[in-house]
């Protein structure tokens, strides 16, 4: 998969006021800046820096990260839902890449 491809998973249905679990996996190498032990050349850092979790365009959480997070980061976070709507994640890396991913949830 190409770098930056994301999978966002939320339950299809939930009760009003329920606390759901939002899970996501993003394809990204998450390389720290380091020296190659064989060639001695510096390999530049390439990792995600920021991820916003939004619900109906309202900011729920901001996650800042560095290269300390594993490659192809998996993140799970809690969220309370009061109404039906769209869950969106917007994430960016240190080389200017920006992506978005949405998922819908029905609340009864």
């Amino acid at each position: 998969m190409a770098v930056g491809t994301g999978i966002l998973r939320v339950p299809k249905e939930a009760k009003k006021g329920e606390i759901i679990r939002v899970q996501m996996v993003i394809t990204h190498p998450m390389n720290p800046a380091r020296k190659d032990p064989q060639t001695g050349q510096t390999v530049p850092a390439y990792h995600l820096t920021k991820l916003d979790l939004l619900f109906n365009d309202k900011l729920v959480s901001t996650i800042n990260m560095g290269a300390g997070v594993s490659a192809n980061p998996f993140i799970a976070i809690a969220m309370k839902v009061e109404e039906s709507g769209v869950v969106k994640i917007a994430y960016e890396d240190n080389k200017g890449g920006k992506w978005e991913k949405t998922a819908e949830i029905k609340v009864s």
Partner: protein
Amino acid sequence: MDRRRFLTLSAVAMVGLTALPALKPAFGASKLEEEVQKRLGVALSQVKESPEVKLTAPTIAESGANVPITVESDIPIDKVEQLWIFVDKNPSPWITDVKLTPMNGRVFFSTRIKMGETSNVRAILKLKDGSFVMATKEVKVTAGGCG
């Protein structure tokens, strides 16, 4: 100066010179403490361990490249502001920080992190009243995952 005094003096000087660089790191702040000071704005010694923060991590991780950790807390979400995760002995101890809002419902965060060697993992929560609480767990790493 006679020969005996010259010898003792030079011996003392030699010991002093060789021991000084080795002693230096003990006086300077460690990388973790610097990072905590920079990111949180307070010293690590002011962060208190609390049983209210639950940090779940494996006791022994087979690979340091993928260590699953989960942070949970029963502290009401409207009293919590932010969450940090640090690994003591990583080349860069700061892993991630999460800004939480009442829309999160409760404190729950799970991810996978890299660890260079066996060390402590710390989860620090900042509360609305400005205080910090922390949970610490040691994870043994058999194969490092940095680089």
